[in-house]
């Protein structure tokens, strides 16, 4: 695992300085306008589908389907996996969230290409090595995957979508995410600033 991160980081050591310069040079759109745009996309999802956006759900489905392929008896005992596999009538991968997530990949890529922002690299602050960054990325991802499943959603599903419909649990979740983030920020400052 450590050697893997070494290989990955070594390949991109050269790009470190690039990342800093780019950050100052590329202006991003007015955040409020972007927010309105995002809000309209979310509204479209509500009006057309009666549901909000999401992200972690697609990954959960992928995990559940994979585990199911390897050990079906195991998943049949497990209520969490079962929910994502559904019944035998429909292919669990023909899932709304999976298609939406694929769209996010495509959309992000298109927007990146148009703005010349697609570039291989590692996002990190100036005081940390790439290797550590990747380790943190893995740990952070793990925590977020776990926490999001515990809370039945992530930022997109709970905070954004649930927030817009004034869902009690979603707002509680959102507040806690900010709380947890700010609490951990002090300890992580090496990584970012």
């Amino acid at each position, binding site marked *: 695992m450590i050697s893997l*991160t070494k290989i990955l980081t070594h390949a991109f050591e050269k790009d470190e300085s690039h990342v800093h310069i780019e950050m100052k040079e590329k202006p*991003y759109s007015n955040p409020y306008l972007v927010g309105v745009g995002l809000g309209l996309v979310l509204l479209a999802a509500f009006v057309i589908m009666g549901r909000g956006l999401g992200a972690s759900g697609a990954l959960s489905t992928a995990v559940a389907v994979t585990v199911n392929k390897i050990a079906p008896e195991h998943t049949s005992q497990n209520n969490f996996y079962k929910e994502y596999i559904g019944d035998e009538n429909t292919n669990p991968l023909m899932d709304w969230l999976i298609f939406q997530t694929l769209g996010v*990949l495509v959309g992000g890529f298109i927007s990146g290409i148009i703005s010349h922002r697609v570039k291989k690299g590692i996002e990190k602050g100036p005081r940390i090595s790439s290797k550590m960054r990747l380790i943190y990325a893995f740990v952070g991802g793990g925590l977020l*995957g776990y926490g999001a*499943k515990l809370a039945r959603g992530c930022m997109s599903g709970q905070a954004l979508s649930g927030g817009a419909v*004034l869902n009690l649990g979603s707002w509680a979740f959102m507040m806690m995410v900010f709380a947890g983030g700010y609490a951990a920020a002090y300890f992580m400052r090496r990584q970012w600033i």
Partner: protein
Amino acid sequence: MNAPLFKFEYFNTDVSLIIAFAIGIAFGIALEKGGFGRATILASQFYFTNMRVLKVMFTAIVTAMLGLYFLSVVGFVDLSLIYLTQTNMLPMIVGGLIAGVGFVIGGYCPGTSMVAVATGKIDAVVYVIGMVFGIFIFGEMFPSIENFFNSGFMGSVTLPAYFNLSYGFVVFLVVLMAIGAFAAAEWGEKKMAAKAGKEKQ
């Protein structure tokens, strides 16, 4: 016309998947344009140097909320048919804390990590692998935490229902809160920038 369109069967499930893809593309474009494909920008939220996350997120929430509210009031949208995740208070609080910590450590959330992967960020790829791992651990641990997962069940409850306020009033409060948060964010950013400027000198 009635909305949500899908729930009134204007089109079938297969078409809905195409729509999912289209909406996803729009979602991805919006996120990338907002700068959310970069962990450094996302993380700066927590150091008060760049409050984009707060601004974009709350603006999006307010926009969608206002849109949904007014479309429902005029009768175009049937609000009761919009999906409302059930509230399990304690797991959501704990999950939120864990997710928040994960956010700052990892630098992404699931949606933004996808955009980052699409724009070539290796740390995002590692992050996604981490997420898959985290979900897997959760799945494996599930039988033992299933009770906790289902605890604090409150059904599908909205803020207005819980606090016994009218829906419109809560909408108003949320708008006020958002505007207040934005003003504070702008002020905070200016202060941090001034501080940084002073330090440079």
